[in-house]
């Protein structure tokens, strides 16, 4: 599809920029990798730097980095030298993706459900908004411990942390999804309320459609472009939140060691992780655009012609 190709082409400069900016930022940072609490003699450090090519001029390293990248390699991770950085990242990306999707579902379910309810039944709007506001105003790193305290330690219904089964997914997904869901409630309520006042929705009412039919057939399609636009910041919020949530719940994802890798100057991991985040966000953007094009026949037909 032409649109897809165009989006992909357009995203290449973005990726190039992300990689280059990240490369510059991490390499401009003071200090280097392989510095432990105990300093090692000069000879030992020289050996390490030679081994990882860190003794070469920065420009050469940059070129080599690109050459590696184009052959699908990021080199070894500095913190885990026996493993390739790409392997580390892919291993971490899978749980992160699962958690992210689960949290997005939580957010969408609560956000769209709550928003629709509040828009259709103005009387429910204050309590729904109140809950949404609270979800918004509690930082994830406070919400997480509170949920653990209640559901894992007091009630014993769910595991306090760790990974491996659907039950382990519940609390982290809630922690990550609730604040985003809260924001979505408020957004969707506003959007839908405006849409419901639109002429086509009033007309649909007059045709005798029920509340939900009006939303499903008219108000929601009308609001869809706005919702799709909202997805990108939403996903960005999830990605950022996962950095903390994965740590609190010991999820073996990539958000968890992003900060640690930066502190340890694990260059391949930091650049690779940033790259993966950028790709993920671009994919969401592109998917949103494609979905929009598909769902809106005006764009759809234009492209087929």
């Amino acid at each position, binding site marked *: 599809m032409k649109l897809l190709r165009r989006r992909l082409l357009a995203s290449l400069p973005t990726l190039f920029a992300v990689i280059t900016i990240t490369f510059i930022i991490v390499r401009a940072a003071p200090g280097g990798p392989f510095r432990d609490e*105990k300093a090692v003699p000069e000879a030992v450090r020289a*050996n390490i730097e030679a081994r990882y090519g860190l003794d070469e001029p920065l420009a050469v390293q940059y070129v080599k980095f690109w050459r590696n990248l184009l052959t699908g390699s990021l080199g070894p991770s500095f913190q885990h030298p026996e493993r390739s950085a790409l392997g580390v990242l892919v291993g971490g990306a899978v749980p992160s993706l699962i958690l992210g999707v689960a949290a997005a579902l939580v957010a969408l379910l609560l956000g769209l459900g709550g928003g629709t309810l509040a828009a259709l039944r103005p009387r429910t709007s204050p309590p729904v908004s*109140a809950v949404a506001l609270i979800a918004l105003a509690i930082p994830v790193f406070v919400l997480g411990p509170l949920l653990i305290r209640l559901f894992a330690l007091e009630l014993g219904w769910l595991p*306090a942390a760790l990974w491996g089964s659907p039950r382990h997914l519940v609390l982290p997904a809630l922690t990550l999804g609730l604040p985003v869901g809260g924001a979505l409630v408020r957004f969707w309520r506003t959007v839908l309320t405006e849409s419901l006042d639109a002429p086509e929705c009033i007309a649909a009412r007059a045709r005798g459609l029920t509340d939900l039919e009006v939303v499903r057939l008219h108000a929601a399609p009308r609001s869809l472009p706005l919702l799709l636009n909202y997805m990108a910041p939403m996903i960005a919020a999830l990605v950022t939140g996962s950095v903390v949530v994965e740590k609190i719940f*010991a999820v073996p994802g990539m958000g968890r060691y992003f900060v640690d890798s930066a502190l340890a100057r694990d260059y391949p991991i930091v650049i690779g992780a940033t790259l993966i985040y950028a790709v993920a966000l671009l994919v969401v953007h592109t998917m949103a655009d494609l979905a929009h094009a598909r769902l809106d026949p005006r764009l759809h037909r234009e492209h087929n012609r």
Partner: protein
Amino acid sequence: MICSRPTACVIAAILLAWTAGCGSGEEHTGYVGRARPPDRPLLRIAQGGDPAGLDPTRYSDQPSWRVARLLFEGLLAFTSEGRTTAGVADGWSSNSEATIFTFQLRPEAQWSDGRPVTAKDFVFAWRRVLDPEFGAETAEGLYIIKGARQINSGKADPQSLGVRALTERVLEVELEHPDPEFPIRTALPSFFPLPPEHVAARYLDWPGGLDPVCNGPFVLDRWLPDDRLIVRRSETYWNREAIELESVVFFPLADPNTTINLYRAGEIDWTTANTIPMDQARELLRRGAPEVHVSSVYATYYLELNTVREPTNDPRVRRALELTVPRESIAEGIYGTGHRPSRVLVSTDLPDWTAPEVPAGDSETARRLLAEAGYPGGDGLQPLVYLYNAGGPHGAVAEFLQGAWQQQLGVRLKLIPMDFASMEERGRRGDFHLLRSSWLADLPAPVEFLAVFQAGNPNNLTGWEDREYDRLLEQARHVLDPGERNRLLRTAEERLLNDAPIIPILHYATVQLIKPYVVGLTPNPLDVIGWAGLRVNLEWRPPR
């Protein structure tokens, strides 16, 4: 319609749910959370992170060492009390100068592929650690072996290393200088043997994601990075009869609150050194919970002072600062899980070691010294730049010192939290007045601490150098009598503390939680585990 009423209700409900939970039941049972053994002989361990890798000789982080000691065994091994015992070697001897050591390897020691462990395996592993091309960060640990430093600098042939396999089962080691304690060193993972025929194939990155062939009490079952690492009992370990645990699971948990939550939920049996929140550990200690174990550790928290830059180049300023550190408040108030305030560098827990006298004085003395240096009441002093690596209680210590020195001496501090790499770089440039530091000894020997301030040691950022100090240390290395050696070292430490390029603050301690059904696990200063005899009492139930 007003939003604030339901809002208030929900907030109240959340707070209620939360406060209702505070201090639940634990006070009565005496146990920390759920105390119920697993259904099979299994030990679940929380540590702060994943091992860097599985090659025992290559890394120096505590998680790597802990795993390495499960999978591999050196010439000597440790008991659970932290004493050395026979490992792969069942006998050793040295010449009278303690410069040449001969180890006899036990015939029943074998690799997990069934091949016996031979002297050649050690020679291979040690040469590899020192190989410049391999670039191991642990190489310095082997510098005591003759020729090691030259080889590691690429100036000598690896074959020239002072290690020889006299026969399959006899290993001879020649040292740079006498060290009667050398056999203890061989219990450190950087001295462990490797199976050459497997390692040679992936020389730089062994085991590179594969299950390593190993010679320790356990073999790798599976490693799910960032999730868990599982080992199971080895079928080939020479002392396998003494190993009672079927498997051991390591959980890498970065967040101390997560660790204690999982311990409370009964999913962790042992939280290794300092992996739980300090405030909760303190609270549990106060309550006298029997699951809390405090152990000293051969480590010291100290500040490095810049002896090159004004005004800390003046020993009187340094002594004034040293005299007014509120050590008790820091050790007990900020730390407070067995940490002991201290004015000396070498851990006072070391066996057969007596700390030197440190010049006495109070805050009056300190003010006088400061005035003599030309800064009465802190007049004329710019704020001193204090670098520390953010994280843990280092910020709290810095803030506390800031308040104390301001009040007692009129000395102001400019606190600069940094990440470790940046701090090290800035420290190396000498762009600071005070810098937070600490030292952990791998072996119970005073020289492990004192060598840091010998000329040329990269860990000394103070710029302080003293010929006499270096001479005393060098002399002590050649003395075989322990009493005489310690006397020389004590004199050296006294010189160091008198000149005060550093301000020792406290000796560390570790705090760990061990479930009541775990038998034979004794926290010790070297933070090592003796796996023989360690078991989980599956029948254990809380007494009524």
